[in-house]
C-alpha cells in the first residue's frame, strides 16, 4: 500500500494526479511531495483524487496544511474528481465549505 503523485504543468495550471491510499503511514510522503511545489501568485493547483481509494483524517490534515500554504502565497487550490466516499468525508468535516472541491464523474461515483 502506498501513495504516489505525478504532476503535469501547463502554464499557470499545475495538475497533480494522486494515486493510492492516504493514511498515517503514507501521509508524510504526500506532504513532502506537496511541500516542494514552487508556489507563485496566480498559480492554480488542481489535485486529481480519482485514484485515491482510501483516505482518513490524516489525509485531510495534509490537504488543509497545503491549502493554508497556497492561500498564503495567493495561489489557488482545487481538488477534483472526488469519489462519493471522499466527497462525503469533506462534507461531514465541513471542509467542503472552505475548500474548492469537485466531485468526479459517474465512473468514480461508487468508489
Amino acid at each position, binding site marked *: 500500500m502506498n501513495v504516489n503523485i505525478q504532476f503535469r504543468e501547463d502554464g499557470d495550471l499545475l495538475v497533480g494526479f494522486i494515486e493510492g491510499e492516504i*493514511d498515517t503511514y503514507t501521509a508524510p510522503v504526500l506532504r513532502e511531495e506537496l511541500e516542494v511545489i514552487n508556489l507563485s501568485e496566480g498559480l492554480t493547483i488542481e489535485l486529481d483524487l480519482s485514484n485515491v481509494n482510501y483516505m*482518513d*483524517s490524516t489525509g485531510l490534515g495534509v490537504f488543509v*496544511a497545503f491549502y493554508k500554504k497556497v*492561500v498564503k502565497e495567493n495561489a489557488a487550490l482545487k481538488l477534483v474528481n472526488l469519489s462519493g466516499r471522499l466527497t462525503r468525508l469533506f462534507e*461531514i468535516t465541513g*471542509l467542503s465549505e*472552505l475548500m474548492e472541491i469537485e466531485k468526479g464523474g459517474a465512473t468514480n461515483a461508487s468508489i
Partner: protein
Amino acid sequence: MRAFDYIEIRVPAKPQYVSVIRLTVSGLASRVGFSYDEIEDLKIAVSEAVTNVVQHAYKDHEEGEIVIGNALYHDKIEVMVSDYGTSFDFQEVKSQIGPYQENENVALLREGGLGLYLMETLMDEVRVNNNEGGVTVFMTKYVTREQVNSNVQSITT
C-alpha cells in the same frame, strides 16, 4: 452458544500496520453482512482510533503494542482499540474537536483533531475509557440494511 465471535488482533504501534488493521476489520465486517458504505465508514473509524494510538500513545518509547478486539454479532460489530500508553482526557479532547465552520480563518485552520469527530460520526456508539494502563476506545456499528435470512436455501438445479 455464545452470541458473538471474538477475534483479537495485536500489532506493534507502528504506522505501517494501520492499513493491515483496517483491511482485517473490513474483512470481519463483511462476514457480519455490512454494506459497502458501512464497511468504508468502519474502516475510517477504526483507522482513526489506531492512528491515534500510533501517533500519541507511544511518543517516548517505541515498543508499544495495540490490541484490537472485535466482537461479531449477527447485527452489529463491536471494535475495541486499546493501548498501554498515555491516557487522554476524552471530554477535554472532545471539546476541542469537531467539524470546520464555514467562516473560519484559513490561516488558522486546524490540521488535525478530526479523528475523534469522525469516529463519532461514522459509528453508532463511541466510548473512551481511561484506565490506569492506558486508553480503550470502544465503538459499535449496527447493520442497517435488511440482512439476508441465514437459513434461506440456495436453489440447486
